């Protein structure tokens, strides 16, 4: 038991996402289900989100038509499953600026947002490059940056440079530059003693990114980085090592929010909308939302 409760909340999913996107080198290995989720941290008088998903009004039909994204539900709907509403959220940590993580800031009118300054400055740079280099600004909606301008004018956007401890008591931010994106970050929740959790954003998509088979090189497991990256897989592996160090190399404490099999490691339930609520840990006195 500790200071914070953590839930991973599914808000949509893709039934068939190509495996090579989530696991480097998994070419021609078919598809996996990719849940779209955000994490919720509650405790110490705070309600914090790790990422905010995307806004179906802007993208829903296109995503549905083109990529098979299904069953999007609003934050009002999704957060109600843990007895909260978006208005209760006071803090949001944006792990990176991809549309499915940073695309719904308007739904959280009272929250202060944290993002790495480099995530913005390097996207600016990428957007300024010639057309032949446009691969480098993949999956970013300029509209999210525009909404970031509005947040900044309201003094609700905080840009940080690198690691920052105790953004909330016991909650730290850590940067993984030039990895999945230019300024990705992860969130570490220190719940007291050895009870530490890492919310990895897209630095880890699935369990195999941390515990991949090492049979080919005669070790039990090894880190296999995420496939999709504008930075380097080397930096993803280095970030994974740092995350693992923070949790004493206990792999289950690094939480990949796109991992369908979280249900195999943590208690969970499916809501009436067909989306999963996974309970990572409970603070002292907090009641379970999955049992």
């Amino acid at each position, binding site marked *: 038991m500790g200071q914070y409760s953590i839930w991973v909340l599914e808000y949509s999913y893709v039934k068939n*996402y*190509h495996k*090579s*996107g989530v696991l480097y080198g998994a070419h021609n290995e078919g598809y996996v289900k990719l849940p779209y989720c955000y994490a919720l941290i509650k405790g110490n008088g705070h309600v914090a989100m790790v990422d905010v998903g995307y806004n179906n009004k*802007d*993208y829903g039909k*296109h995503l549905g*038509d*083109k*990529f*098979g994204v299904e069953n999007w539900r609003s934050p009002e709907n999704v957060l109600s499953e843990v007895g909260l509403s978006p208005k209760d959220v006071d803090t949001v940590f944006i792990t990176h600026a991809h*549309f499915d993580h940073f695309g719904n800031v308007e739904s959280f009118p009272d929250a202060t947002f944290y993002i790495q*300054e480099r995530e*913005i*400055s390097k*996207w*600016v*740079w990428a*957007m*300024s490059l010639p*057309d032949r280099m*446009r*691969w480098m*600004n*993949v*999956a*970013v*909606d*300029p*509209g999210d*940056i*525009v909404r*970031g*301008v*509005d*947040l*900044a*004018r309201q003094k609700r*956007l*905080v*840009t940080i440079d690198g690691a920052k401890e105790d953004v909330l008591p016991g909650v730290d931010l850590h940067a993984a530059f030039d990895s999945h994106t230019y300024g990705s970050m992860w969130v570490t929740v220190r719940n007291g003693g050895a009870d530490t959790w890492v919310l990895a954003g897209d630095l880890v998509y699935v369990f195999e990114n941390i515990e991949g088979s090492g049979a080919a090189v005669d070790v039990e497991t090894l880190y296999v980085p995420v496939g*999709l990256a504008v930075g380097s897989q080397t930096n993803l592996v280095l970030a994974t090592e740092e995350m693992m160090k923070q949790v004493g190399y206990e792999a289950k404490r690094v939480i990949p929010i796109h991992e369908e099999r979280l249900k195999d490691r943590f208690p969970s339930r499916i809501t009436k909308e067909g989306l999963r609520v996974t309970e990572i840990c409970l603070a002292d006195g907090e009641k379970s939302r999955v049992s």
Partner: protein
Amino acid sequence: MTRTPDNAFFARAVTIHRYDCEAVPASHGTDAATTRDGPAEGLPDRSEAVAAYAVSARPVYDGIRRLIGHVAGLLVLVEAGGRRDVLDLPDLPAARERWRELEGRLHAIGVPHGLEAHFGQLATAHAAIGEVLDEFAAARRQRQWQHHIDRAGERITLAYSCLQSASEPRAGMTPVDFNHACCSCAQRWLQEGGNNGSVFNMGA
């Protein structure tokens, strides 16, 4: 939905060829693919005009999209980071240069009847970005600069709103560049027939 000659041509124009591919102008009217899909003589002039419009408007749309991200990011750095030094970065003259380049392309677009409103959204978005750049320049020159940045924030919101209105996924005009986000998914979508509906609502 049945694939018709005009939308088949459009699909080739916007999904197979780049907008500046030499094959695009050559394929108007009588190329083999057009005759495969139907008789060339039955091809209405207007559908060719629409396809030509889409081919020339898409890079302008994309340029505006990226320019919005570019200058909005600079605004975030100024506002959230409190960094006035951003106003001295070479990114701003570079943005102005791209804006001028887009202006030339915008004026070169032939607008078929029925698509004036779409073109108007692109033109307004482009003009609003120009105003943002003007505000940046004014902020750089003046000691009291915050109100220029505030106004730039309002204009960039307008620019994005116009961009959204001009978005047409079937013409490759989407706020998010998904082309490489999910490579096999995009290919799968194409293999499954893509979207062969009409390209633009012409106001019918």
